């Protein structure tokens, strides 16, 4: 840009700039501490109304008291001083929303923080919005393919569902979420990843991973880092869902991940205690259930009359020493439509993703599963449950009958089959082929340690030798007798070659 251009642009901006003069409601900062300001005056302010401080930093009025207003400061509070003017804006907090935000990293106020320049938007969405009502909704009937066999087969997720990912630290919770995003390529899905209270280094890693996998073409990252004030962490998930609603209102499907809501609850507890709200269980305020329920209730699938878009929410909760009966985990379990429970023991045993199939459940996803997958996965969950029971029993070392032995061997192969490395999502038709071979007992004579090798080979082989089956699954979502016969033949042929 030349000097003349800059001057010309500035002149245009200045000429177009109009100031509307009106009387404003102004209060004064009485005290300011830890991201909270107590403001006198502003007697007509509404709850959740945006205010502006003298240095341009924004805030939100949360506590409306008789002679003062408790404001959370959304930005640098070190330059706000006692006696500073505070202006009420008359607007409920809103964030900019736009299609241009795709591929960008935003802060909790929707502003770009990735150094690629500001995003020009005309539209804003309120951060707090009442969730869609019953009449505008529709039942969940389309799947979200995560590309993870254990989830797509046993704990299926539907578009518009809320499925909790819960587990201790270092059990692969974020990995599942990232894999799910990576697998949405070409699936007509916009993804929003909300990072709450995480280290900037971790976020950077995730962003790089997503960019490498080509996922940033359909993903928006909203971040409130651990170095930012608690108020930003508190606002971030609502900002994420406000952006997601922009796409849902346009009839698109959105997948939103809240990573994680335990830190969100902790941030809200910090704010509440600083605002002197009475503490309750585990020092959380009384409305901590409402904090998450009003957020997750905004995930929904709209019916055709309302555009047919959807928001699928995958909140993440971190437990302490596997305690799922703590306050926040039980709250979020009761709000969501199921949970994926990850276990440290399984993780260290090498079962990755470390999904505990017994504790995990999907309450509505089953109706969204494609017919072919439903057929192969139907007995798998039961088989695995029986396997775990027998496995414990067989450790006594007593003699086992042949039927039990067979079941144990099948179970071992099922566990092996459900293992899957990170960042390697598998498309649903390939998942069906391998699970078909498993549940029909066609893998019973393949050694357990060779299952992974067999699986990889079989998929490649089937691509060329089970074309009818694959075509039927891709188009009709279910196989016919002809397709099934072809697949059986292909598995038999491949196995003969593999074992010889």
């Amino acid at each position, binding site marked *: 840009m030349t000097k003349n251009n800059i001057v010309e642009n*500035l002149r245009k*901006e*200045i000429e177009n*700039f109009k*100031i509307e*003069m*009106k*009387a*404003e*409601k*102004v*209060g004064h900062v009485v005290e300011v501490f830890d991201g909270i300001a107590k403001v006198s*005056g*502003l*007697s*007509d302010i509404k709850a959740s109304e945006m205010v502006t401080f003298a240095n*341009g930093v924004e805030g939100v009025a949360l506590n409306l*008291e*008789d*002679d003062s207003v408790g404001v959370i400061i959304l930005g640098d509070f070190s330059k706000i001083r006692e006696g500073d*003017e505070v202006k009420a804006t008359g607007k409920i907090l809103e964030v900019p929303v736009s299609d241009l935000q795709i591929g960008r990293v935003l802060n909790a106020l929707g502003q770009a923080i990735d150094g690629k320049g*500001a995003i*020009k938007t005309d539209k804003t969405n309120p951060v707090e919005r009442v969730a869609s009502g019953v009449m505008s909704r529709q039942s969940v009937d389309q799947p979200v393919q995560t590309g993870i066999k254990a989830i797509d087969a046993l704990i299926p997720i539907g578009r518009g569902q809320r499925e909790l990912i819960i587990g201790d630290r270092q059990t692969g919770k974020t990995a599942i979420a990232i894999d799910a995003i990576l697998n949405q390529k070409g699936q007509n899905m916009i993804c929003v990843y909300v990072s709450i209270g995480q280290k900037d280094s971790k976020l950077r890693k995730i962003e790089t991973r997503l960019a490498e996998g080509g996922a940033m073409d359909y993903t928006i990252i909203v971040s409130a880092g651990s170095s930012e004030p608690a108020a930003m962490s508190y606002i971030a998930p609502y900002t994420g869902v406000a952006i997601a609603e922009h796409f849902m209102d346009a009839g698109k499907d959105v997948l939103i991940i809240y990573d994680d809501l335990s830190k969100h609850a902790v941030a809200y507890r910090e704010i509440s205690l600083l605002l002197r709200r009475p503490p309750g269980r585990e020092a959380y305020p009384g409305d901590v259930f409402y904090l998450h329920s009003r957020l997750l209730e905004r995930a929904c699938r709209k019916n055709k009359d309302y555009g047919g878009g959807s928001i699928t929410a995958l909140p993440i909760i971190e437990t302490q020493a596997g305690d799922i009966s703590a306050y926040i985990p039980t709250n979020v379990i009761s709000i969501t439509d199921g949970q994926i429970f990850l276990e440290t023991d399984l993780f260290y045993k090498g079962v990755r993703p470390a999904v505990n199939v017994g504790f995990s459940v999907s309450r509505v996803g089953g109706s969204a599963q494609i017919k072919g997958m439903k057929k192969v996965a139907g007995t798998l969950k039961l088989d695995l449950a029986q396997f775990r029971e027998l496995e414990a029993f067989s450790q006594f070392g007593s003699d086992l009958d042949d039927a039990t032995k067979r079941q144990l061997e099948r179970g071992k192969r099922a566990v092996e089959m459900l293992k899957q490395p990170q960042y390697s999502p598998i498309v649903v038709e390939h998942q069906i082929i391998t699970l078909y071979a498993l549940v029909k007992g066609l893998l019973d004579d393949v050694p357990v340690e060779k299952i992974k090798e067999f699986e990889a080979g079989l998929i490649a082989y089937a691509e060329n030798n089970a074309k009818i089956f694959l075509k039927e699954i891709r188009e009709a979502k279910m196989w016919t007798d002809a397709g099934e016969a072809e697949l059986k033949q292909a598995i038999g042929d491949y196995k003969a070659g593999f074992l010889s």
Partner: protein
Amino acid sequence: MSKISINNIAQAIADHTKGKSGADLEMAYKDTLSFLNKKKLLSRSDEILEAIGKIIDKEDGVVRMKVQSAKKIESHEQKELEEDIKNKYGAKEIVSEYIEEKELLGGMKITIGEEVLDTTYRNKLDQLATHLINN
């Protein structure tokens, strides 16, 4: 139990002293002081006095106005302004304070209670600066 606010206390004191004179008023002052002392509120007496002032102003129909301007406002302009404000707020009396501040550059800033009308050049320039930075 809900917290008693400064406004509540100020209202109570104003009601307690209202219409009293002589020995009664003296007694009311003593009551007030011992109450504030008992509740450890003497350190907040400035806030309480300000709140009482506002309550009395409201009852008497007094509106307090602060006008900041870069140049001195002539007396006929002051009169005109006060008349306008009197009509707008339906006040019986206007108590005004005029302050000259060179850094406002031009225009004036009128403050009445929580309401502020800022037509100064300084404010306009600040708004322009914010607009240019954000766009």
